[in-house]
């Protein structure tokens, strides 16, 4: 009897213990969705960004070709091409691509259904003027255009350039990725209130990110005509269109569903990719100028890959020399995530929306492209970040289980609560969760 009683106690304890362990493990009761990817389009040339209408119509850009649309029925129409591109209903003779530059971001106006307005970011020669003679002067070479889209989705008209002075790198420089057209940013999104947000890049010019008279290494918040949001708060003397500055190359921007707060995702310079919660007037902390913060002269006055930019070295040593988020700035926006000090090409970003994403709903997804230099493992994945409410840290980061490795260039949510991803390999994927 005594033995039976003890056995029962032990059995009960074991059962209780197992149950307790299952809960402590954290998986019991969690709604972890099944995630799968299917190809929507292939054979594209550097698809860079997509934008959806409520009915599933998808606009998309190809960096060196132009703007196209895929209708909800699956037909495609080439709408507005770059100079020299063929098969488009119209083309911009001033639009060109070189290196990382070309036709990049696309987004519809909040009131697209009534005004048929679409915004597109591209490189252009139209506003070079007397600038752009060297890498060390003003070069207005990236623009944001506004179009009217025909109801039959076969053409666009009424091009109006609402931003004409985003900076561009016209010539090669002495840097590892030194070709012309470097660091244009290029992601554009509609944020709270229907305002247009525009990410730009430092275009390999050292003084850019901390010089608020130039549109480079900044995030803009503007209306549909290109005017500054009245509540933008740039530093004194800064361009009023600037929401934040001190960025390196903003290719990812989206707004957290729970509070509308803007977050950016950025490539690091061989160290420290970053996810950052933006603050109006805040400083991303990127300052690649030479002869500052204890630095000496740098190749072509740009310290972005220094020191020792032609050799592999510990990312932490580079980070100490030219930090992504330099703590000497009092207005610094500290990153929520820094990729454990690595740079793997973190680019576009989109918050996951819809209950179908289960435990991942509300997390930020970011596409990570490459490059595995030195001892840095290659990226080629999509990460999902559970960001703390204050935006200053993450709770967890989980790799999206896709069963494939790609250079994920552009991420955007579709109206079907699926995540759509453009890859540098030339494909657009639909990533579903259920």
């Amino acid at each position, binding site marked *: 009897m005594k033995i039976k009683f003890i056995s029962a106690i032990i059995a009960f304890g074991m059962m209780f213990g197992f149950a307790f362990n299952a809960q402590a493990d954290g998986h019991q009761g969690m709604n972890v969705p099944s995630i799968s990817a299917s190809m929507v389009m292939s054979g594209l040339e550097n698809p860079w960004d997509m934008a959806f209408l409520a009915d599933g119509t998808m606009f998309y850009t190809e960096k060196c070709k132009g703007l196209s649309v895929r209708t909800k029925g699956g037909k495609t129409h080439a709408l507005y091409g770059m100079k020299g591109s063929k098969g488009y209903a119209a083309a911009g003779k001033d639009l060109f691509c070189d290196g990382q530059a070309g036709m990049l971001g696309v987004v519809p106006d909040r009131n697209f259904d009534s005004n048929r307005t679409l915004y597109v970011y591209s490189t252009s020669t139209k506003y070079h003027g007397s600038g752009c003679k060297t890498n060390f002067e003003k070069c207005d070479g990236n623009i944001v255009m506004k179009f009217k889209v025909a109801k039959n989705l076969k053409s666009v008209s009424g091009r109006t350039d609402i931003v004409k002075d985003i900076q561009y790198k016209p010539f090669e420089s002495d*840097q590892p990725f030194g070709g012309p057209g470097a660091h244009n940013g290029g992601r554009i999104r509609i944020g709270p209130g229907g305002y247009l947000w525009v990410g730009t890049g430092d275009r390999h010019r050292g003084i850019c990110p901390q010089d608020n008279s130039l549109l480079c290494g900044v995030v803009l918040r503007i209306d549909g005509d290109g005017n500054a949001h009245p509540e933008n708060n740039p530093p004194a003397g800064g361009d009023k269109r600037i929401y934040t500055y001190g960025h390196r190359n903003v290719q990812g921007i989206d707004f957290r569903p729970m509070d509308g707060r803007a977050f950016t995702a950025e490539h690091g310079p061989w160290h420290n990719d970053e996810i950052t919660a933006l603050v109006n007037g805040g400083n991303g902390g990127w300052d690649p100028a030479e002869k500052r913060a204890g630095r000496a002269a740098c190749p072509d006055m740009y310290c972005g890959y220094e020191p020792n930019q032609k050799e592999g070295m510990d990312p932490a040593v580079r980070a100490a020399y030219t930090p992504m988020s330099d703590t000497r700035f009092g207005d610094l926006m500290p990153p929520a995530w820094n990729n454990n000090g690595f740079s793997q090409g973190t680019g576009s970003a989109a918050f996951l929306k819809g209950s179908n994403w289960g435990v991942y709903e509300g997390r930020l997804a970011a596409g990570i492209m490459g490059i595995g230099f030195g001892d840095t493992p290659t990226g080629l994945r999509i990460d999902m970040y559970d960001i703390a409410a204050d935006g200053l840290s993450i709770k967890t980061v989980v790799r999206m289980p896709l069963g494939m490795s790609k*250079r994920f260039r552009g991420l955007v949510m579709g109206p079907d609560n699926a995540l759509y991803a453009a890859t*540098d*390999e030339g494909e657009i994927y639909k990533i579903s969760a259920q």
Partner: protein
Amino acid sequence: MKRFASALAFFFFCLTFSGYSFAGDKVAGEARYKKSCIACHGPAGKGAASYPKISGREVSYVKSKLETYRKGIKVGPNSSLMIMMAKPLTDEEIANLAAYLKDARYVNN
């Protein structure tokens, strides 16, 4: 005659042991490609983003380019990057990469 035979033997000896003169190993080249090159040049050397397509090139072309970069000679805007990547490559690895890239084809999954 004896001299000729010796020279001939020496010639074949060189051919046998130079290794680099012969076609590279495609399988080894693919493995090396996936380790160092794929993140920029994309799968099967198809090219990606601002990084050019490098598949379908003659073996001699790829070898020549990689050897040039390995010597630290600039030949384009991303030379600094390529010089860093090529520096650690052995002759054998260059031959293997060239052999792989000549016939590499991207198959969409």
